[in-house]
């Protein structure tokens, strides 16, 4: 009797966890264009323009989906697979990262290194697609993107390492759950340094100012846009959606790591619903803050970008060092 009860309770835990995971993915897919729309709207209003409305990116997706798919001659599988890979990798990260709940069926696999690797997979597949087109712009964008990613990935790893030292694990749900139960870990110097470092690389990774200008039409200055110039129609819709999902997931990760409050750690449906609501609020707030900040920023000279990213790497390194000593790991 009690055994059956325990099994059904376990089933309920699994059910809520699975539902939370599905909700994460659905919310990221559905919300990513809205986040972009919100950010553009905030920027437009701050610049004194009317703006196209928050739903405009979804309307763009609808428009692009109706168009005829066109593949440039002599492009291979890299070009065709990249849009799908970009969306799928972003979707996988959305499932892995503890955005709503730390108790999902995949939380045991949600390792930090895996997440960074999947993130890189999406970026590299897009860079390969840029090279595959054989155009000067594709190659130029791919080369710039690779320069950026080479500096970004280690910083992401390091800054999350700084947070993983107190948790004693590189498992993201464990880090988040630990921080939620011991908020003091975040208020440490290590937490602050890691937060800044991670915020900078999120800007670089998602092609925002001051690293890349998402609104430019100048082919020669582009990083991300140069790689995807040859895409059109449904493929372009996927590329745009994938990029928007990456921005959403990375902002969500930032929120989960440094403001984990409200993320469900158990099997309660109410907690999961609250987690979902808070996720939307936190990501929207971060997006609005980013959009507002971008109004006052300008794009760095391309050769200054490595300096910025090296600076964020240094902060991440300091965060790891601080975390190592301040948690007493060094004295053991």
């Amino acid at each position: 009797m009690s055994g059956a009860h325990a099994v059904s309770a376990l089933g309920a835990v699994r059910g809520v966890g699975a539902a939370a995971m599905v909700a994460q993915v659905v919310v990221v897919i559905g919300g990513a264009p809205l986040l972009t729309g919100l950010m553009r709207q905030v920027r437009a209003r701050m610049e004194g323009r009317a703006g196209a409305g928050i739903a405009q990116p979804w309307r763009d997706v609808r428009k692009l989906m109706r168009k005829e798919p066109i593949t440039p001659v002599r492009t291979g599988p890299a070009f065709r697979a990249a849009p799908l890979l970009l969306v799928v990798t972003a979707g996988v990260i959305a499932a892995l990262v503890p955005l709503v709940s730390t108790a999902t069926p995949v939380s045991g696999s949600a390792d930090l290194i895996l997440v960074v690797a999947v993130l890189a997979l999406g970026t590299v597949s897009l860079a390969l697609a840029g090279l595959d087109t054989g155009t000067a712009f594709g190659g130029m964008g791919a080369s710039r993107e690779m320069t950026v990613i080479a500096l970004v990935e280690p910083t992401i790893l390091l800054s999350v390492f700084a947070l993983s030292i107190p948790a004693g694990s590189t498992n993201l749900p464990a880090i988040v759950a630990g921080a939620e139960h011991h908020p003091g870990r975040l208020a440490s110097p290590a937490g602050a340094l890691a937060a800044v470092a991670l915020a900078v690389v999120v800007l670089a990774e998602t092609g925002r100012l001051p690293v890349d200008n998402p609104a430019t039409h100048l082919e020669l200055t582009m990083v991300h846009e140069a790689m995807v110039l040859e895409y059109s129609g449904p493929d372009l819709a996927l590329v745009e959606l994938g990029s928007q999902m990456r921005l959403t997931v990375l902002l969500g990760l930032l929120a989960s790591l440094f403001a984990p409050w409200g993320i469900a750690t158990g099997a309660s449906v109410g907690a999961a619903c609250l987690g979902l609501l808070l996720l939307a609020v936190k990501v929207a707030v971060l997006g609005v803050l980013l959009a507002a900040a971008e109004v006052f920023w300008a794009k760095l000279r391309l050769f200054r970008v490595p300096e910025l990213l090296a600076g964020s790497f240094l902060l991440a390194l300091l965060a790891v060092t601080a975390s190592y000593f301040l948690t007493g790991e060094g004295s053991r």
Partner: protein
Amino acid sequence: MLTVRDTTPDELPAAAEQLLADGGRLALVAAHHDADAVRIVHLFVSGPPDTRTELHTRLDPAAPELPSIARLSFPGGRFEREMRDLHGVVPLDHPLPRRLVRHFHWPRGWYPMRPDAGPPPPFAEPEGPYPFLEAEGDGVYEIPVGPVHAGLIEPGHFRFSVVGETIIKLKARLWFVHKGIEQLFQGRTPETGLALAERISGDTAVGHALAYCLAVEEATGTTVPEPARRARALLLELERLHNHITDIGALCNDVGHGILNNHAQRIREHLLRLNHGITGHRLLRGGVVPGGAVLQALPDRDRLRALGADIREVVALALNHGVVLDRFTGTARLSAQAARDLGCLGYVARASGLPDDARRSHPFHDYGETLTVPVHDTGDVLARFLVRAEEIDTSLALVDHLAADLTPGRTVTPPARDHGPRAGNGIVEGWRGTITTRVELAPDGTLSRVKPVDPSFFNWPALPVALADTIVPDFPLTNKSFNLSYAGNDL
């Protein structure tokens, strides 16, 4: 002070060398197909005092050839190449005898400016290959850009040879917008030619119209009344204002600082509406007419002062922004020597330390003490930005000063049909630089030849020179800081 001299082809290089050595600048070369000869006019100018010297060289119409002055004057070499492509006049011993205007598909042996050219034949046997110079070496790759661009800009093809991100060579191939304007002028009356002159480069309606009108008035011996000259000076400054603030915003936009661009566009819109009230056209068409000027209203001086304060705020915000300033500083330097050798004009020249300004050297109106000519000598994007920002201040002061004694209305002395020397030059400091137009009239008073020269013709070769060793992502910013006209360059 205009001097007209006839030279033989053999005397031409020596005469040109003497004029250049005396501080002259080659402002214009035009070919004319007279009944018995092909007549080439070289116009050399210097000032102050306003000095203009025309050399008329007659060539055999069966085989028009003249000795090249390309080794004496770089613009001279380009005028000769343009003349060969359009008129079939062959420059002898030209050091760079490549095509300039003629694209690959132009029919062989067809020269549109010859009187017997007729309508353009269909695209036929091409002139032969038109290759780009290839830069070779380890890791050199080419980036072809254009002629169709992503933004709303005119067509031009740029071929970058790049190592990593550093430009080692840039070739700009223009001449995609050949409209045959010079020939469209022929046979029109001076009054109907005005509409064409206003459309040579859409953003320079006043500049080109004024240069054209000055040339027509010199050719007909017309004296323009003082209030009309004053009104013309006012319109010229209003044109400078709206173009300069647009580009100041665009420069900020190109470094990703869009908010200043939005404000610059707002200010521009206010200025264009002001223009609409003054001439009935947002780009100031219809204000300058042969023999005078027409003002429907005067600018609201308080409104202009308020806009001036807004402009100064935009400029200050740009210059106080660390990243924006960093992007501008040291980017794409054009040395004073290069600017002088290439014959650069306008703010491009003044940002590289050359203080030339046709409002000083070839004045059509006495500006008095209000006119200052800002000069910077670093030759980078920042210098071009600063020159234009400071010119806005000067223009605002001039508009304020000029508008004080003006009244709205039409002030025109109609040009006489059959008086005057039948040929004339107009030199005007348009917003982009010095515009020179030469007009000849037929005995019946219609236009027999009009040759306008936009400053872009002189400045385009400076862009690749300034870009050597600049990185590719800084090209759009540099290009915007020059902001040369494609339409005015390719008539």
